[in-house]
């Protein structure tokens, strides 16, 4: 079959559209889920977090996170007015069992839940020498545990400290944004367990998701924006002292 230049030019955009469909498929195990329809992120409202640690416990129970390691954790900040650049942070057992009564003398006190930021331009995936860390078409950063060599490069590369070396699997491990839940139409375990709605899973491609109204009307920030990681973990009322 011979094609002239005109026919090839007409076919190119069609091929581009078709390629998009080849990439954006639905993974087996969740037949009604189409990856190209979603773009996942999370909203963390610091004004609502009470530091109960429900998210940390739920994550550990849902994902079999080994004891002493955390896919999500809660930090408590104490910021005094003359040490705004040097906040005092504590997180006993990742905040899993709550927090002891804190400092009462002057300054601000607040909780900051943390987890993988599911960055669009993630440093962890850029440094992986074997391509074990990858981006799904719906915006989640995942680890292929069969590819991972356990070189720990990504653990050092993550500017948010969200990765750890799994003591049994001997691979890097991190938050999967409960990929087995969100592909079934459920929210993540941490969001399910959060009693105050401080954490909310957000689908940025869904025009009806309440995230859009929230982002338009609140002062929202991501962690370490100067690193341009494209973080999708949006914090409401984030204090400048949070690192």
């Amino acid at each position, binding site marked *: 079959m011979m094609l002239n230049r005109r026919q090839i030019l007409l076919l190119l955009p069609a091929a581009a559209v078709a390629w998009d469909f080849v*990439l*954006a*498929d639905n*993974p*087996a*195990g*969740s037949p009604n889920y189409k*990856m190209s329809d979603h773009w996942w992120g999370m909203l963390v409202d610091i*004004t*609502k*977090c*009470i*530091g*109960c*640690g*429900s998210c940390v416990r*739920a994550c550990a*129970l*849902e*994902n079999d996170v080994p004891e002493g390691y955390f896919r999500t954790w809660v930090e*408590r*900040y*104490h910021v005094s007015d003359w040490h705004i650049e040097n906040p005092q942070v504590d997180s006993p057992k990742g905040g899993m069992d*709550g*927090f002891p*009564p*804190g*400092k*009462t003398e002057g300054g601000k*006190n*607040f*909780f900051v839940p943390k987890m993988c930021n599911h960055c669009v331009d993630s440093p962890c995936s850029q440094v992986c020498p074997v*391509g074990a860390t*990858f*981006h*799904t*078409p719906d915006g989640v950063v*995942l680890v*292929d*545990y*069969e*590819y991972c060599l356990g070189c720990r490069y990504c653990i050092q590369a993550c500017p948010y400290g969200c990765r750890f070396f799994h003591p049994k699997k001997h691979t890097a491990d991190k938050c*999967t944004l409960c*990929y*087995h*839940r969100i*592909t*079934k139409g*459920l*929210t993540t*375990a941490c969001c*399910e*367990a*959060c*009693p*105050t*709605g401080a954490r909310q899973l957000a689908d940025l491609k869904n025009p009806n998701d309440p995230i859009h109204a929230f982002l338009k009307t609140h002062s929202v920030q991501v962690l370490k924006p100067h690193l341009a990681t494209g973080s999708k973990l949006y914090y409401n009322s984030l204090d400048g002292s949070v690192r």
Partner: protein
Amino acid sequence: MGEFKDIAHLIRLAGVFLLGLVLFLVVRSVTIPKSFGQYGPFRGAALVELSSRPLAFAGHEACEICHPDVAALKAKGVHKSINCESCHGPLSKHADDPGNFKPVLPDVAQLCIRCHSENIAKPAGFPQVNAKDHSSGQTCNTCHKPHSPSFDAGDKK
């Protein structure tokens, strides 16, 4: 044919290259997993493995199918935004097999203070108590119903 004489060494060289290419293609087809590139530049089967993990938390929609009475009671009270498994723990086993897997009632003494014990870092408007002063040793559910904890007729909101 004049220009094609003395080309035996070139044919041998081409043969070596061809052999190398065939070897490369064979090694490539053996080492690259079948599902690589299925959804993007990664092993597609990894996505399937991760998304087929069993659930621990069933999700509040599953609870509300069988327990609409509790859901209705909770929807009226201040605990309306709290999902069932936030207090009752992960119960997908119970949701799958309600007959054989019975949930354990949460220990109220531990449960309430997780959220409501005093802490300087909690938001100012959040109801917090010093458990010892507040109830003089009585358990919380002596006065408060967990699914609808505020007092209906009264002085306290």
